[in-house]
């Protein structure tokens, strides 16, 4: 990782550490972009990519270490300050106002001149944008409302917004995530051209193909540290994948539960017996491209089916389909032999329990008591209902039982969900999901934001449900979690489809390749 001689980097991070409370997001990270260079930043969710980019663009300040601009130490006071000093940022989620025209959106990011609000340098800004667009060969409908334009064009407007006369470094956060396959090569042309003009480009991605095709230098982050830095010409997808997800032994140390390892005898085959959950050709249409594209799988009772993948590859849509919250555009969803209507109530009555990704908005009604929150799972059950009345005394007793059974730390059944810690809130969600012995459990990122003890608890609860015969779909962006919990198979979601279904004992670099969109190409790997 020696500094490459010659030119002074446009921007460089030197020994940067950034902590959030007790959590260290980045540790002693070095990073530099030189004029004309396209530098890719690769890593899993939570590896520290966003933190590094926020430090470089002035949104965060480092806990330790320094940032150098053209070789001189600098402290950005704000993103606007960084922008004035030549650092531009193109966000994954566009910061555009849809009803306003292209020109108006370009002016939005502009500071007024000396005369205050009356002196926006309208002509200068627009002329600059026009000449830039001409140079790049773009045809932009300047007066059309931005909301009416294709996503690729909207991204070009974001680029025009970020690109000022002074801009020397442009940071792109997952720029291809929203593009159609035909728009991606066009973006790459643009990036090469911008680099050719002497700018430095930071390209954040998790797609191995793209990173290899486009960039000159590649930095891989894992758990806040730089684990690899290499020239694209000197590496391949497999070693990048391994660097990204870590060597095999890291995972195996996490799998301590003997029962789980033993139950993996079936390997990459479906366990015998009828499936509790049956999904065929599930598809959800999206704006630019399908969000889910022909997913098929079946999960048997007593199986934990793991679904890995980098966030934003269709996890949310798949979870919503399995919860009955959205109706798939096409495909079949069966619970045993039932085919419930696309409503959360019908799915719950068919035996599906969901541990949603966002416990504070989807999982719990924070201002309500534990009894009321737990009643959300059974309010329509005849056991707790007489005509229009809910049997609150019975519901309260049930809550007290569940508080004991699931070890929920609260002052009592009447405690408000808001007053609980995150781990105990998740226990409430899990208690509600598992209390009625569901046939199918859909768990989405069930340990996100929890501490170590709570994580162990959640994992034990899921294994307990599996042992008592539930079919469990575990959708998680934490690869470690998926690999340690999945009993027979791990599927990898990539752009709305499975790039592969493998055994949880597969080599991790292979799974890394699948997460990066490389469908299996190594012969024989499937047989393992």
């Amino acid at each position, binding site marked *: 990782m020696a500094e490459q001689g010659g030119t002074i980097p446009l921007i460089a991070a030197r020994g940067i550490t950034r902590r959030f409370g007790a959590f260290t997001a980045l540790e002693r990270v070095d990073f530099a972009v030189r004029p004309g260079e396209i530098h890719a930043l690769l890593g899993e969710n939570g590896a520290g990519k966003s933190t590094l980019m926020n430090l470089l663009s002035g949104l965060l300040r480092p806990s330790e270490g320094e940032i150098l601009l053209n070789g001189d130490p600098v402290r950005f006071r704000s993103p606007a300050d960084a922008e004035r000093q030549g650092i531009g940022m193109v966000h994954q989620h566009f910061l555009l106002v849809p009803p306003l025209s292209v020109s108006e959106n370009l002016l939005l990011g502009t500071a007024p001149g000396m005369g205050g609000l009356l002196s926006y340098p309208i002509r200068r800004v627009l002329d600059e944008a026009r000449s830039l667009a001409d140079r790049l060969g773009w045809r932009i409908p300047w007066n059309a409302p931005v909301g009416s334009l294709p996503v690729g064009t909207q991204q070009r407007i974001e680029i025009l917004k970020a690109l000022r006369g002074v801009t020397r470094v442009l940071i792109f956060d997952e720029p291809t995530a929203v593009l159609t396959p035909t728009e991606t090569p066009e973006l790459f042309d643009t990036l090469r051209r911008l680099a050719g003009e002497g700018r430095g480009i930071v390209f954040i991605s998790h797609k191995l193909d793209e990173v290899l095709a486009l960039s000159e230098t590649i930095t891989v982050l894992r758990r806040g540290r730089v684990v690899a830095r290499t020239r694209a010409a000197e590496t391949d997808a497999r070693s990048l994948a391994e660097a990204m997800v870590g060597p095999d032994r890291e995972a195996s140390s996490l799998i301590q539960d003997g029962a789980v390892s033993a139950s993996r005898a079936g390997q990459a085959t479906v366990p015998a017996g009828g499936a509790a959950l049956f999904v065929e050709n599930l598809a959800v249409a999206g704006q630019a491209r399908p969000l889910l594209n022909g997913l098929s799988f079946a999960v048997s009772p007593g199986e934990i089916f793991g679904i890995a993948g980098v966030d934003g590859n269709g996890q949310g849509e798949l979870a919503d389909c399995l919860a009955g919250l959205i109706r798939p555009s096409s495909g079949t969803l069966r619970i045993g032999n039932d085919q419930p209507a696309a409503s959360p109530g019908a799915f719950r009555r068919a035996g599906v329990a969901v541990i949603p990704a966002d416990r504070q908005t989807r999982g719990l009604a924070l201002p309500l008591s534990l009894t009321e929150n737990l*009643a959300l799972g059974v309010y329509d059950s005849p056991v707790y209902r007489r005509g229009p009345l809910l049997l609150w005394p019975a519901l309260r007793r049930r809550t007290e039982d569940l508080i004991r059974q699931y070890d929920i730390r609260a002052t009592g059944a009447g405690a408000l969900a808001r007053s609980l810690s995150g781990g105990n809130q998740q226990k409430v969600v899990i208690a509600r999901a598992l209390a009625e012995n569901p046939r199918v459990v859909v768990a989405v990122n069930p340990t996100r934001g929890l501490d170590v003890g709570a994580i162990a608890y959640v994992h034990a609860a899921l294994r307990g449900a599996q042992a008592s015969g539930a079919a469990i779909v575990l959708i998680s962006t934490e690869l470690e979690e998926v690999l340690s919990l999945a009993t027979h198979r791990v599927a990898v979601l990539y752009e709305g489809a499975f790039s592969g279904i493998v055994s949880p004992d597969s080599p991790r670099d292979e799974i890394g390749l699948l997460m990066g969109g490389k469908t299996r190409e190594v012969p024989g790997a499937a047989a393992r």
Partner: protein
Amino acid sequence: MKQRLLRDLPLLLLTFSLGAAALALIIRLVGASPVAVSKALWDGAFGSRYSLSETLVQTAPLLLTGLGVAVAFRCGLFNIGAEGQFLVGAMAATGVGILKNVPAVIHLPLLLLAGAAAGALWSGIAGLLKVYRGVQEVLSTLLLNFVALQMLSWMVRGPLQEAQKGFPQSDLIAVPARFVLLAPGTRLHAGVLLALFCAALIWFFLRWTAGGFALRAVGSGEGAAEAAGIPVRRTVLATFLLSGALSGLAGAIQISGVTYLLSDGYSPGYGYTAIAVALLANLSPLAVVPSALFFGALTAGSNVVQQRIVGIPSVVVQVLQAVVLLAFLAYAWARERRQRREEGGVA
């Protein structure tokens, strides 16, 4: 719970004394004596059997519209159209009340039903707009108030105007359609009891029934309610209907219990005061009773203030109500802040 109330008492007293001091200053500024004003206020609200009955008469419409507002707010719906719903309720009730040849036994129930239905219909418009068109109910319910006001103005000069066509008002409603009076020499009518009964009914509904639970769940966490299979749209729509029905019923009770006829400028702003009533009660249907009584007393008392104290501008009464509400909001804010600080200390 009781402990907390006791602990919050000093805070409550402090905010309200500050409010009272501000009021005294304002009354001084307009050249009246704060002592004389407070005495008149007290006499008008509680000083005699008659003034007590007047307080109760003023309480009834505030109680029902306050319940209507509270129910909507509990579901997370900011229905601020109680005024309009009250007015259309009064119009529909008048339309039924002046009918001839209605069997006497069913005339009053029919009148009340018409008022509630009209109120429900009126807020149902806002409900449909919200559910199917995403129109903010704050906007639609407020604008519907103005539509209702214009409609009233037209009604009392058109379809509902008295037979002699003299004044912008309706004929008196038929005698069987009126509430019985409860105490001779006063205006106290049986509709007050009906309003109290409604408060108990709404409390029971919210606390014990599955429908009430759905309403509260949607209001406390729409995402969680939806994920649990509660039909959010249907609940929202039903809440709008219930909320509007209560305010419409308030209008009907006012027609059949107090005025017996409809006139231009029918409401002195009950539907707006209702928002204050609901907020002061912290949206609890049982607490709406004392809260409405408080504002009812304020209204009855300030009527006497205006009769007795010469030269006091009528806006002072409105200022009085505003200061009371502000004092309460300041109290609620301070209490919340303290609570949050304590919770933060524990975590």
